[in-house]
């Protein structure tokens, strides 16, 4: 683990500029009951060949932030009120619709949680994959179909040439997600965003799909953003981790650093609430309380109502991310949005 994370760190340095950099992103939904502040200042970046995991519970804004990157937020009710999403030297948020569309699918692709509902039920999988080649590359039906079969073979769908005409409901859950992956990777995008790609799958199939994603990433060198609520899924594959809470990235760092020495009380709480094979505990400790209502996020730190380290200051001030360097971490991007981070790191 140490060796691989160090390797990932040097990779980052050699790639002088990140592929995709999200900075201070704010997204809100204006609904009848008020304004839902779904993302409140999220920043992260992902480099070539790097896997970034975005971890958070439902309602933490992880999916919304990904949809903002893809330009999938319906406006109204959704509004991106601040921030930038830099990709290839350009801010996606200032692009016009046609430029944006040229990026979608071609440069940045996305796969979703439920592959059955995410695939169109009335078209064959081959048709849906080949549509990418037909619309983006202007290929003929025949050539596009041949490419679709190759794409299906690449994600290890057995008997691809025969199954190319089958419809989504004729595949198993794992195979359907492979088809989503084949479709997303058909044009060799630079970045793949996977939004809970294995949540709807059986545990054994989850591992297969994660392995496949990892393998394809190594082949193509794409940046991979893995959105999940499940620490176990990302532990083996992610290089770096962003932990989200109430629309903010509360902690960032390499997978190893965050796992071994969490620097935010929420991350620490998450670690204690899941079973681990390497540490023996008699009883799992849940995080007390509930996540905040995004219509009424508490003042100051959103986590303070559930936080065992809470101090007076947490109520009045929103903690900004603090760089955590040596001796805690060698990683330049390691940060925690907590006034008490030193205590959290010191605590076991």
């Amino acid at each position: 683990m140490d060796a691989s994370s160090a390797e990932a760190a040097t990779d980052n340095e050699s790639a002088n500029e990140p592929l995709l950099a999200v900075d201070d992103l704010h997204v809100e939904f204006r609904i009848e009951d008020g304004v839902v502040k779904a993302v409140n200042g999220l920043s992260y970046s992902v480099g070539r060949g790097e896997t970034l995991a975005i971890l958070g519970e439902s309602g933490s804004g992880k999916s919304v932030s990904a949809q903002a990157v893809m330009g999938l937020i319906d406006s109204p009710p959704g509004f991106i009120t601040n921030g930038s999403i830099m990709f290839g030297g350009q801010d996606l948020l200032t692009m016009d619709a046609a430029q944006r569309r040229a990026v979608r699918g071609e440069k940045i692709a996305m796969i979703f949680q439920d592959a059955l509902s995410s695939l169109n039920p009335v078209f064959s999988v081959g048709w849906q994959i080949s549509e990418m080649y037909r619309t983006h590359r202007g290929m003929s039906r025949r050539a596009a179909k041949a490419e679709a079969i190759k794409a299906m073979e690449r994600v290890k769908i057995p008997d691809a040439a025969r199954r190319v005409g089958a419809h989504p409901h004729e595949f198993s859950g794992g195979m359907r997600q492979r088809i989503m992956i084949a479709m997303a990777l058909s044009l060799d995008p630079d970045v793949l965003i996977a939004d809970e790609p294995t949540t709807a799958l059986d545990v054994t199939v989850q591992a297969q799909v994660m392995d496949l994603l990892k393998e394809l990433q190594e082949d193509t060198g794409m940046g991979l953003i893995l959105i999940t609520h499940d620490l176990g899924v990302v532990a083996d594959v992610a290089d770096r981790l962003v932990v989200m809470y109430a629309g903010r990235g509360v902690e960032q760092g390499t997978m190893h650093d965050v796992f071994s020495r969490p620097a935010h009380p929420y991350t620490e709480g998450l670690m204690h609430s899941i079973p681990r094979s390497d540490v023996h505990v008699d009883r799992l400790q849940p995080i007390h309380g509930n996540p905040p209502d995004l219509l009424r996020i508490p003042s100051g730190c959103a986590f303070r109502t559930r936080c065992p380290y809470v101090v007076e200051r947490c109520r009045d001030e929103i903690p900004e991310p603090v760089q955590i360097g040596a001796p805690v971490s060698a990683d330049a991007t390691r940060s925690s949005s907590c006034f008490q981070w030193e205590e959290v790191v010191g605590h076991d």
Partner: protein
Amino acid sequence: MGRYIIRRVLQLIPVFIGATFLIFAMVFALPGDPIRALAGERSQSESVREALREEYNLNDPLPVQYAKYVGGLAKGDFGADFRGRPVSDTIKQRVPITARLALVAFLFEVIIGVAAGMLAGIRQRGFFDSLVLISTLTVISIPIFVLGFLAQITFGLRLGIVPVAGIKQGWVSYILPGLVLGSVSLAYVARLTRSSLIDNLKADYVRTAVSKGLSSRRVVGVHTLRNSLIPVVTYLGIDLGALLGGAIITESVFNIPGVGGAVFDGVIRQEGTTVVGLTTFIIIVYMGMTLLVDILYAVLDPRIRYD
């Protein structure tokens, strides 16, 4: 697909027997003696009555009469009315007229209904959406004969652009009655298309289509449309069956000698053979349309075939 169609056809057999037997039995149960009704004011000897009863199989028990009737149907014999004219002649004469009227009404439903529904659904709560919702509600709320008279006065008399009634002027004569006959279904089709499109636009696969970098025209026109039209096609198919069964009110308002009027006259005159013959024909057409809808349904939605 072949098995699916065969299964569907087999399912139609009990439906056919049930529906025709019901009609047959109901006409049989009508009060009054058809043979006496045939004579009208004139006197009729008992032996003539008996001979006629024998000729029309009226002395047989109901199931036997029914069996003989169905046996005749198989040979294309729908029986004859009391003037000795085969019912199949009435069908041949009336059906093309009804079919023309139905086709015109159906085209209005499909073209205007689906287009209005789509335009309304794409921009939900927009001006056009409100316009469609209000106008369709108005059409649905007004009885069809009122619509018919209004259309006659406005387009036929005031503007004089189409004939007021009758079928003397060929296809032009069918425009106004077709529009009136199709208007209520047109309103339903527009509303159904609209709500189905709105539902489908929220579906996950639409999000996928957008994330594939497709144009919004393609996302709506290719990905969403086909899914949205599945319930609309069902409705349209069943409705076409109903249209081909004749339209009593529209036909009488516009003085069109179609199937609906013939059935109505048959009922008034207690002509059992005409009523049963025409109704049986309508049932067959209706079943044919249902079968067509089921097949179309399976073509549109590949998930159906395995049910």
